[in-house]
């Protein structure tokens, strides 16, 4: 966390099945509605949440999403969502981030798409240790 940001944890959701993906989407959506994000921002971020939560279910089996209300200088509010799992991890992050790359014979749009849909995207992963991805959207 950058020193210029303050953060407040709002909620945490354990993610292990398809219904948890919907729950994560709904909670993020209602948080963004309350905070005053535009419908377009809500749609973009909830779509990114859906992709990243599904990656946990499909590729790691289980993990969690933590959501934080953050503020920048001059009190600009933002939302940060952290997706953390202790699954197999990603050996080559550059490759995994490429549009069209998939180890599960899928479209390979999840990671590359999620990055394009939010203001900030950060990924850390180590083989056999797990993956942590954070996304940020500023109001």
């Amino acid at each position, binding site marked *: 966390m950058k020193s210029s940001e303050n953060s407040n944890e709002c909620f945490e959701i354990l993610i292990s099945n398809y219904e948890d993906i919907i729950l994560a989407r709904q909670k993020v959506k209602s948080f963004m509605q309350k905070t005053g994000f535009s419908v377009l921002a809500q749609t973009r971020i*909830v779509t990114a949440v859906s992709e990243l939560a599904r990656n946990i279910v499909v590729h790691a089996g289980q993990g969690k999403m933590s959501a934080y209300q953050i503020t920048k200088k001059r009190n600009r509010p933002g939302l940060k969502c952290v997706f953390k799992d202790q699954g197999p991890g990603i050996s080559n992050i550059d490759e995994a981030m490429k549009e069209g790359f998939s180890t599960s014979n899928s479209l390979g749009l999840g990671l590359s798409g999620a990055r394009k849909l939010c203001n900030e995207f950060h990924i850390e992963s180590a083989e056999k240790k797990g993956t942590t991805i954070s996304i940020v959207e500023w109001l």
Partner: protein
Amino acid sequence: MGEVTILNIGNNIIVPVQTELHDEDARQLQTDILKKIENTGAKGLLIDVSAVSIIDSFLGRLLVETSKMARLMGTETVLVGMKKEVVLTLIQLGLQMKNLHTALNIEDGLALLEKMITGPSLSRRKDEKFRK
């Protein structure tokens, strides 16, 4: 998560998706739609997603696949009611919805289906007239 109603009206099947579908619901819906096509021999399939707030890569791909499968069964598909935010997000995500016909609302969608279903035979008729 609720069941999705599948309506059969005239030659068409109409599917108003009213809830957010999780992945298994969406797969089940695809199966149910194909069964309904098989049972009714419907010529047109209209899927209304105006109540759906997001379409991610999974649902997007499933919709495209459903329309391809329907076509193999002799049924044309039109997707209606995509919100503009959903369209913008799909484009940004990089999902190609090629070959999937879309319309603004149910009314336009039904008109498009009608054209798609009767279109080729009409032009054939025109050809015949032309030959005479």
